[in-house]
């Protein structure tokens, strides 16, 4: 019986040592994993944007926030109640269809000729068979699935231009120097700009924004409630999103 007891003791000791050894091995492993993951988030890998205008931007952010809650949101909500979802989605598609020149020119400037070709085919099919773009029959064809987004800001980015300075624009919200300049390019490439008289053109653009907002109600609220600092959260999300568009296409 005594021998048995000793054997059990020895087994127990060996067992506990092997556990300890495993723990030590694992803990060094754990540190390795941590530093491997950590490197993903180091400053070199997370492109920063300079924000020297932060005090001004924060004020603008607050003004936009109030504008949203006290003006744009109630208007968009009323609009949502009047116009059914399907119809609003159709309008959104039609606007995308009309803004073809923005995509087309920028695909060419980025030397994305396949995308240019796809976008052109989509325009023809959706205009002819989709009631001027209200419907999107082109997406039914597998090879004509929506190509990645293109706008002038992204083209400038493709050409190697950085964001420059982060800015919060009145009403339009987060942007950067580069994308702000891009917006000017998009403005001139947008056919709606050339609608006469000028107030009609602005009216249509306002309608487009309203329609867009009606399809995205609640998103800003979600971001705001989940954030510790909504200003930083929006800034970071904007830059990350734009950078991912840049690296995806």
């Amino acid at each position: 019986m005594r021998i048995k007891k000793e054997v059990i003791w020895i087994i127990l000791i060996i067992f506990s040592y092997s556990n300890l050894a495993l723990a030590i091995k694992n803990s060094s492993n754990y540190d390795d994993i941590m530093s491997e993951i950590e490197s993903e988030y180091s400053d070199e890998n997370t492109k920063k944007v300079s924000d020297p205008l932060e005090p001004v931007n924060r004020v603008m952010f607050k003004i936009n926030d109030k504008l949203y809650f006290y003006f744009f949101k109630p208007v968009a909500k009323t609009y949502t109640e009047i116009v059914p979802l399907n119809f609003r989605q159709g309008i959104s598609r039609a606007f995308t269809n009309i803004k073809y020149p923005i995509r087309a020119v920028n695909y060419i400037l980025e030397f994305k000729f396949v995308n240019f070709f796809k976008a052109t085919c989509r325009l023809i099919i959706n205009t002819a068979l989709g009631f001027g773009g209200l419907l999107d029959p082109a997406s039914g064809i597998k090879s004509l699935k929506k190509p990645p987004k293109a706008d002038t800001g992204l083209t400038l980015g493709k050409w190697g231009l950085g964001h420059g300075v982060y800015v919060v624009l009145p009403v339009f919200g987060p942007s950067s120097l580069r994308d702000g300049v891009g917006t000017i390019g998009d403005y001139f490439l947008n056919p709606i700009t050339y609608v006469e008289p000028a107030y009609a053109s602005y009216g249509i653009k306002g309608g487009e924004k309203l329609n867009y907002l009606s399809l995205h109600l609640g998103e800003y609220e979600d971001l705001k409630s989940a954030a510790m600092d909504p200003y930083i959260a929006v800034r970071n999300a904007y830059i990350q999103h734009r950078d991912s568009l840049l690296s995806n296409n």
Partner: protein
Amino acid sequence: MQRIIIFTFIFFFLFSSVSFAKEPSDTLKKYIDKTFEVFKTYDNPTNSTEYKLEFENKLIDLAKDIFAFDIMSRMVLGRHYRELSKAQQKEFECLFIELLAQNYFDKILSHVDDIKKFPKDNIKIIDQTIFSSRKAEVKTEIKYQDKYTPVNYRFVFLGKKWKIYDVYVEGVSLIKNYRSQFKDMLLKKSPKKVIDELRAKLKDTKCNKKFNNGCFKLRSLYFMCNRGLWYAN
């Protein structure tokens, strides 16, 4: 509604106790199936708050099984993580999980019926990239109405299981986003103040001030608790 669907599948794609999966995409696939099953069990005709709370807790427990929340909370703080005491680290982790839970899970539970009706085929695993023997990414796409939203999961292999440590929605990393916010806060405030602010933001929380992690209190074994044993989870 789109965002509710997305919330749901950001977090609940993903739970159950499936382990030993060889590939992260397999793990994910099993979780999708599990998720749908669990949501089917939701039965709350009287809309009682108690039932909701119970279900939410169930969801959090299950999510803990697939999300490496400890790594997430560590990455969110970056180098400031080391400035926190052990107790503060645990407290922060607990509060961070609650922050996610209160902002995502609550909303999900008010739309369970829509989630039940959501067709499984609208979630597609598109691609899987293995970065190294212990890091991988699984790309998915969630279709809602006529919009596709790319949701990518970053996985880390922890001894036995693949676990998620980051989620990218439309190219925006959850961790990077929070990290930038906490970084800014920690430049101006002490860690204790940041934790207090986080606590104040939450409606009410079960995380104790002096967080007890339930591990061995023996000093010599402490590191095993925080590393070695954690690893064996």
